[in-house]
């Protein structure tokens, strides 16, 4: 079995420092991410939140090895990241299951790439699917599954090779609110069992607080780290925690931070004053008539 039942893992230290990413256009270089740094300690659950387009996925993709920073250092366990590898499991928002492989073949993929034998990896995949409650669907093709099921397969597939870190790029963004809450619970349980380091990108503040040990808040583009918060909530956490005063306070604080950046990200002269101005008093008239 690739996954140990308990967590001796003191590996999975992610360090990003002085991270800059720019790309060239005719009008000169455009800076996407500027001077970002972050750390994920072994076994820690860390989220990055920020407005859309701020470069949070860029940071995650750099840790995964899909892109190289213009300048700066990305290391995992002090080893520079040179390209994608099975050491860093990744879960995508669009599930990205292979449509031509059954659920079980999808989960087996990483093991197959590692050269594990057919029967051996089938056993491993069945065990993992059993843990995820997906045994009944092992021979289905992914397009027969619901979004929540697809993403459970996506997570199990990423964990099957026993990676040091798990990277998740808005993994629950496409799910409905109820399914999302259940998936968050499943992910927390898995993470606690495996003791693996997690870097989680989201724009959902509640999700970030509920899941994380620590949260990085990013600014609007050019993105950089604006704030870092240690979540003071005890574990194990359950849904009722979302009503606790600490949770409510943290959500309000983070909400204010992000709102500021989101307004910037939306561009133009949009700010708090402009927003108030949008509340046109129509007096019952049609908006088209007023304009």
């Amino acid at each position, binding site marked *: 079995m690739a996954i140990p039942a308990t967590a001796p893992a003191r590996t999975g230290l992610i360090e990003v420092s002085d991270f800059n990413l720019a790309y060239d256009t005719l009008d000169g270089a455009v800076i996407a991410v500027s001077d970002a740094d972050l750390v994920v300690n072994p076994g820690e659950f860390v989220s990055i939140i920020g407005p859309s387009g701020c470069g949070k996925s860029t940071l995650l993709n750099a840790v995964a090895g899909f892109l190289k920073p213009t300048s700066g250092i990305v290391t995992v366990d002090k080893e520079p990241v040179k390209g994608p*590898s099975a050491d*860093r499991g*990744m879960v*995508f928002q669009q599930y990205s299951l*292979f449509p031509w492989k059954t659920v079980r073949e999808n989960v087996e*993929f990483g093991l197959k790439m590692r050269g594990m034998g057919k029967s051996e990896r089938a056993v491993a995949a069945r065990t993992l699917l059993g843990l995820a409650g997906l045994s009944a669907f092992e021979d289905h093709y992914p397009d027969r599954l619901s979004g929540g099921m697809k993403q459970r397969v996506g997570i199990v597939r*990423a964990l099957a090779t026993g990676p040091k870190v798990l990277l998740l790029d808005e993994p629950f963004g496409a799910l409905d609110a109820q399914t999302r809450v259940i998936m968050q619970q499943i992910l927390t349980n898995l993470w606690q069992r495996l003791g693996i380091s997690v870097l989680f990108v989201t724009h959902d503040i509640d999700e970030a607080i509920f899941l994380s040990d620590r949260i990085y808040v990013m600014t609007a583009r050019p993105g950089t780290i604006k704030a870092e918060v240690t979540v003071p909530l005890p574990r194990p956490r359950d849904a009722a925690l979302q009503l606790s005063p600490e949770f409510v306070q943290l959500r309000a604080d983070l909400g204010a931070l992000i709102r500021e950046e989101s307004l910037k990200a939306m561009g133009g002269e949009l700010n708090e004053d402009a927003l108030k101005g949008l509340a046109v008093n129509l007096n019952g008239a049609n908006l088209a008539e007023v304009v």
Partner: protein
Amino acid sequence: MNSIAMKPAAKSAPIAAPFHLAGDGGVHRPVAPGHIVLRPERDALAAVAAPDRSFTGRARRWLKLNAHTIRAMLLGALAIGLFILAWHVVTVNRMTFYVRFLNVPSPEQVLESARTAFSTGAFLNHIYISCRRIFIGFALAAVVAVPLGLLMGRFQLLKEFVFPVSEVLRPIPAIAWVPMSIMLWPTNEESIVFITFLGSFFPILLNTLHGMANVDEVLVRAARCLGATERATFREVYFPAVLPQVFTGLTVGMGVAWVSLIAAEMISGQFGIGYFTWEAYSLVQYPDIALGMITIGVLGLASSFLIRIAGRAVTPWSRAK
């Protein structure tokens, strides 16, 4: 807090709002703000009538579920029947209204000539030779164009190098290659196969390229961070991802292969169904013209059908859900 009336099933739910069970039906009573009124539980399965499992019951449901397909088949048969009837009427009466059916053979005459043709080996030999040319030309085109398309899709440099040549040659119809082909190849047989090859080559190549351009980059990333090498990514992601598009190319390519083959056979053949059809005209065997045409149609249909079957067999994930 108001009185709480919870139904048994909801006992474990820690809900703070006052609960009531909806009672006497008929009149809708407004629900007090902040209260939750539970409806009595219903057995959803009981609402569906038990299915009739007898033979007639199953047969009736089968008819109902397949009504659309049955209708389409009946309509299709009716249309073909009407077509043959109209053909019969215009030819038997030797009608002329600008278009002249004076010398056009009637369905009966064609049927008669088919009987004669199939009773001798010569006609079957024409069919065999055409099929062999199609098979060789088409198979060669697939074997060259699919890998070339895959590589061109993967390696931009190769694409930039090969694509302009392909774009210049592509608009030249296969028939225009006939004289050149006769000069190029030592035997007539080879030149006809070459023309068939050319006809199917470009549709297959272009569709494969198009499929490669549409491979979901996220799937490639997913494979890479599961430890897939370049080769494994090619085999496990790019190849299956383009397969449906490759089969579109093969289907189109097969159609063009027949067009090219028949043209080549009519011009330079000594055998083959295209040669048979053209020869029938020269020898004033008019029913054989129609026989040749119908045979070409049936062979073309059958070969497209075979490719569709093969396509479905190798892409089981894209089968109807």
